[in-house]
């Protein structure tokens, strides 16, 4: 990205996010990138300034999502489906006459909406008076919050964790960060503390993580294995599941080998990670309990492709894989700039597709309200905001992908 471009903060109240299209990690804090690597695994909260702790845990949280995508098939598959859904929409838009006016929202069939709904749909296999069920998103976020806490607060126990999620994640939509843990803890008590992230990981290796999570909680409870043995390995938990008919699990690598699903960012990453893991490294055990890994090299190997800080240009991971070598259109020589451009374009275009299907739901980080296309809000996911709208790279990218002028797109007026 160009050094002249500044990156404004995310929407107020959002500490960070990772984009499921380009997998760029954005952190909404003053630039602390210089301190990051030395203090990433700070152990004692009392020794670390509050701002830094928030910053650090936010990066960890979003980074865990990236680890999940590289290791658990559900997230990889979902990212691929989103990517295919976007491509379908692009194809349909291209079929419109190039000079015809397109009004938003697009009136075309898309699989993206149902997929996103499915992620939020709770399986009601198990419930408690307080938790009506568990959705795939509950498993994803529940695992991520849990792993983040265990990475940063090594002396925490079940009661401490319950207290934290009660304080931070017990209201409204925030419950998606704690419902899975609270449900499992309701049935299994404090024994859940040493196996929660494993159950989540295995559930995320299935087709229906919400349902599978409940099945694992049931299987482990009914097996009685925790009465005598608290710290189960991943394999022991898999075996408990098998005894109760739980099969059909796939890691991301197995998903790629079996289905051949391809994602422009994640696929090269998975390949790079697998090729560079140390001999005899247990990747599954790592994926299930990343907080037990002390090897910084492993975390460096699987950090997201781009880190973005408020007011600072993007920080490209120094060892980006070559996104173009295995893609449908491979190039002769690829630079980091090409790779970063691909991420930025992918995010911008995928974001535009979502905004065309569901207009007005996106936070505009761009301050250039005098831009003729500002009202469309299609560019909300375009990361580098230019000094002036005339220098913006979004329009060119949009027109090249959709094969039509941005001026042919209009928002339907509310009646």
């Amino acid at each position: 990205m160009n050094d002249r471009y500044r990156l404004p903060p995310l929407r107020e109240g959002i500490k960070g996010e990772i984009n499921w299209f380009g997998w760029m990690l954005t952190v909404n804090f003053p630039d602390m990138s210089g301190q990051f690597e030395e203090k990433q695994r700070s152990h004692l909260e009392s020794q670390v300034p509050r701002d830094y702790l928030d910053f650090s845990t936010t990066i960890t949280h979003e980074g865990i999502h990236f680890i999940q995508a590289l290791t658990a098939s559900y997230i990889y598959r979902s990212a691929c489906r989103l990517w295919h859904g976007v491509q379908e929409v692009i194809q349909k838009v291209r079929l419109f006459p190039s000079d015809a006016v397109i009004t938003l929202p697009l009136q075309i069939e898309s699989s993206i909406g149902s997929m996103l709904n499915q992620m939020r749909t709770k399986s009601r296999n198990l419930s408690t008076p307080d938790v009506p069920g568990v959705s795939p998103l509950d498993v994803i976020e529940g695992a991520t919050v849990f792993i983040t806490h265990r990475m940063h607060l090594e002396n925490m126990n079940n009661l401490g964790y319950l207290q934290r999620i009660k304080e931070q994640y017990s209201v409204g939509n925030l419950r998606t960060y704690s419902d899975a843990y609270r449900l499992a803890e309701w049935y299994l008590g404090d024994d859940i503390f040493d196996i929660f992230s494993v159950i989540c990981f295995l559930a995320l290796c299935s087709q229906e993580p919400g349902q599978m999570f409940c099945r694992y909680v049931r299987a482990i409870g009914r097996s009685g294995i925790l009465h005598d043995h608290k710290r189960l390995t991943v394999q022991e938990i898999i075996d408990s599941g098998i005894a109760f008919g739980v099969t059909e699990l796939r890691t991301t690598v197995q998903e790629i080998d079996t289905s051949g699903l391809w994602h422009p960012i994640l696929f090269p990453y998975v390949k790079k990670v697998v090729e560079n893991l140390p001999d005899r490294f247990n990747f599954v055990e790592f994926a299930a309990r990343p907080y037990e890994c002390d090897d910084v090299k492993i975390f460096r190997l699987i950090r997201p492709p781009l880190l973005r800080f408020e007011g600072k240009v993007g920080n490209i991971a120094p060892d980006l894989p070559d996104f173009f070598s295995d893609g449908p259109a491979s190039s002769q020589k690829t630079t980091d700039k090409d790779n970063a451009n691909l991420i930025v374009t992918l995010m911008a275009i995928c974001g535009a597709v979502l905004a065309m299907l569901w207009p007005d739901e996106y936070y505009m980080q761009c301050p250039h309200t005098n831009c003729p296309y500002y009202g469309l809000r299609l560019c909300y996911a375009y990361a580098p905001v230019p000094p002036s709208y005339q220098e913006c790279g979004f329009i060119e990218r949009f027109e090249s992908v959709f094969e039509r002028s941005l001026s042919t797109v209009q928002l339907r007026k509310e009646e």
Partner: protein
Amino acid sequence: MDDLPGYKKALRVIQVQDEDLEQGDISNLKRVFERIVRVPKHAKLLRGNVAITFPKYDNDPKAIYLLDDVRRYIQLVDAEFPYFLYFLELAPELEQTFLWTTCLLPVTHVEQHENKVLIGLDSVALVILLVERIHAIEMFCEQILDESTSIIDSILKVQSEEVAVQVIRYLKLLDYLENE
């Protein structure tokens, strides 16, 4: 509290108050256990960790399972919590299974033999009682997501082989019928 060594293993002794025993009033016990059984993790903490005693008869040489007020009290608890054996410490030396089953069945004959009391129970009634209670424990374990096999083993371990075999046979039949 959970971090204290041996916390989960500590035996909880329920001492039934004389007044409750005499009046056949189980409300104190019921109030506590109704709260416990509502939360699976709490129920599991008490699994096999409870013993029930009657201080009124601590110094009485009589066999307590033959005393009317004790039998009535156990019968009332059992009617409310048919899976109560789940909570009882089933080690043979504590005789909790014996106390429970004997209080729930008619005693066919009693024989005083030196310092021991020998009693007779209807073996068919005992088998039926055990099948029903074990089934209730299985249902309760299903509800709170716990394992029931080891509890069933402990209950059957103190029975005669003949009774145990018949109970298992009935349980398998019950399982078959439920799954059909």
